[in-house]
């Protein structure tokens, strides 16, 4: 476990998280995340190596027939689109980049 996080790691995490952060936000984030990681490092004291990682035992692989349960109102969804063209969501180009 770590008890500190570097500003370089913050840059990387912001990239992974798809977050545009200001320099001020990055500085505060470095401090806050370090404080929290320092706090949770107490978990090392718990002797749990033999335990299995948690699962809801009775709720694994729940599946049902692929039947239609809900009537989707597609116009209701499209109305929320920041940008649309006819019945399509309009998004930035992703090819040729």
């Amino acid at each position, binding site marked *: 476990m770590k008890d500190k996080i570097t500003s370089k790691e913050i840059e990387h995490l912001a990239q992974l998280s798809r*977050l545009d952060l200001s320099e001020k936000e990055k500085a505060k984030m470095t401090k806050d995340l370090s404080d929290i990681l320092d706090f949770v490092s107490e*978990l090392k004291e*718990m002797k749990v190596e033999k335990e299995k990682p*948690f699962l*809801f035992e009775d709720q694994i692989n729940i599946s*049902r027939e692929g039947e239609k349960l*809900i009537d989707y109102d597609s116009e*209701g969804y499209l*109305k929320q689109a920041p940008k649309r063209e006819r019945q399509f*969501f309009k998004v930035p180009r992703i090819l040729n980049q």
Partner: protein
Amino acid sequence: MKDLTLLNIRELQNGYLKGNFSPLEVIRAYLERIQKIDPKIKAYLSLNDQVLGEAKSLDPKKIKRQPLWGIPFAAKDLYLTKNLKTTAASKILENFIAPYESTVTKRMKEAGALLLGKTNLDEFAMGSSTERSAYQVTHNPWDLTRVPGGSSGGSAAAVAARLALVSLGTDTGGSIRQPASFCGIFGLKPTYGRVSRYGIIAMASSLDQAGPMSRSVEDSARVLEVISGFDANDATSSKKEVPQYSEFLNKSPKGLKIGLIKEFFTEGLDQEVKKAIQIAIEVLKKEGVEFSEVSIPEVKFGLSIYYILMPAEVSSNLARYDGMRYGLNEYYDSLLKTYQLSRGKGFGDEAKRRIMLGSFVLSAGYIEAYYILAQRARTALKKKFEEVFKNFDLLLGPTSPTPPFKIGEKMEDPLKMYLSDVYTVPVNPAGLPAASVPCGFVNNLPVSFQLIAPHFKEEKIFQVASAFEKLNPNATKEPNI
């Protein structure tokens, strides 16, 4: 006529049956009160402008079949409601109108309940004071300079100030129980899987659970009867039968065994809060409840387990806010930049912090040391609770270490804020039901104790909470607003 906002569900329905008043008059009484008092409390983010029409169109023939016929309620603005904005108190969903309805609000409406409006919360339910709402700060009805708790602070304050009869909250680490405690009302987080999560904006899906909040224990029992039960749209909802919780309200708690969690009564707990809870314990002892101390050392690690697992789920759940299909969009020529700008502008500090922390604990090189370790610890915690419940019907501790704190007091230091959930958080990783029960006042500020039950034993909570409520001299005390 008596103030209609003072009546509970049973009293309202008796009045309807006798023709003493109509749902329309009741809704008008609430709307008038909201208009007069909510500018001071700021519990509501939006009001349902159709509610008078909905009250008018209730079918009187259905009153005996609809258990919540004519009952006014408020819902945390995290529940999707068709035709009414749902913002999660976030800028990223500022103008969002959901194309479908959450199962819980749908069941409330099908039972005849009337939605007054949507209540304030910490953005995406992330916080313990409701100060992290992107829109407004909600004030505690008992002291306007203090927070109502959070994240369901709007729902708690609305009920405490009689701006709604009952409300719906959600609880991921204490977000129903802690604000219920701060506002002096009853609030229950049911067993994980008891109530459908379908259509409730997700924070941490393995911990989130919806539940009722009300001034009387009885009203929450009646709401839980309606909202509980299997839902094919939530794969984790349980098929277990739903008991008639209201049948347990008048059952004597004599002979029940309650364990006092030793680790919850040590340093960190305000001495005055401790005293108030000890008085409540004496009251229950006289009713024949048997108390003994029990040690659960694992609960001391509850916050650490929670602050690894919850952010991990947050980082994944909040990935959907990409500005493409709904929500705030800062359109840019590249896709990546559009994501980054939309999310950077749309999310507040706490949401960003949890997304970043979650990305960290799940990232290559750290996932074993953090996420997997916390999942192992979660197993140990759950097992320990199950072992303890072999000897006890319920467990008891404080809900919050302190009475409500001042607005602004904990905003600068995230860890300080997290610590206000120290007694509520351990319950969620174990999936247990737990409630906050008002028991007294310290310097005119509400204090509560917390009851924790084994999985799917909510009725025991109702049994003890209701017995206590009948003997609590403060039960009918009202905030002076």
